[in-house]
């Protein structure tokens, strides 16, 4: 399990390649990458991500441990950034490995659903007209119901 909470950018290509290369006996690797969107109306100037140092690492480790127990994954990687990010910058990534594809997909979706609503991060969108905290979506809370 490799959990990193950092302000610095990460190298998606290098992380994905290294993750896949270090798996043993796994048939499937899934990655998810979250990117700061640049909406068509050009409103978003930046995104500011706040987190709760100490609890963040613990919460993510707990979520990853649950996924690893449930799906017998090979390995799990989570990288999540905080601080100010510009549009098209990568916010975070997860990678999962499993013997079969369904398990790798499910573990990755589980991680994402829980990271969305159970890891202590808060996003603020900073535009020309001011800044707004991103509201949690009912959909995201509901997504946890399927696990």
């Amino acid at each position, binding site marked *: 399990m490799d959990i990193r909470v950092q302000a610095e950018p990460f190298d998606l290509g290098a992380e994905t390649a290294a993750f896949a290369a270090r798996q043993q006996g796994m048939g499937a690797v899934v990655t998810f990458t979250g990117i700061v969107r640049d909406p068509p109306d050009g409103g978003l100037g930046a995104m500011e991500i706040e987190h709760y140092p100490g609890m963040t690492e613990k919460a993510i480790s707990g979520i990853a441990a649950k996924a690893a127990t449930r799906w017998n994954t090979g390995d799990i990687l989570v990288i999540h950034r905080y601080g100010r990010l510009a549009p098209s910058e990568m916010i975070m990534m997860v990678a999962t490995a499993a013997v079969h594809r369904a398990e790798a997909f499910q573990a990755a979706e589980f991680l994402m659903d829980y990271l969305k609503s159970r890891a*202590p991060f808060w996003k603020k969108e900073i535009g020309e007209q001011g800044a707004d905290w991103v509201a949690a979506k009912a959909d995201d809370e509901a997504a946890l119901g399927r696990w």
Partner: protein
Amino acid sequence: MDVLYFAWVRERIGQPKETVETTAPTVRDLVKELRGREERYAAAFADLDALRVAVDQELTDFDASLAGAREVAFFPPMTGG
């Protein structure tokens, strides 16, 4: 006890962290004490449904006991990922 605030809760309270002397047995009791202090607390804690709480860095609810707790944190629903 350390009390931490994040996101718009931190902005309404006006600080990220403070040390509070309290004998409140539960989170809900602590919230009552804080509300009574100043308008900014009353504003931050106006709607508990819009808030989440962690005791010693574990997500919990407002009825959680504070016995032995070293750190309580208040924040809005999380928006990670």
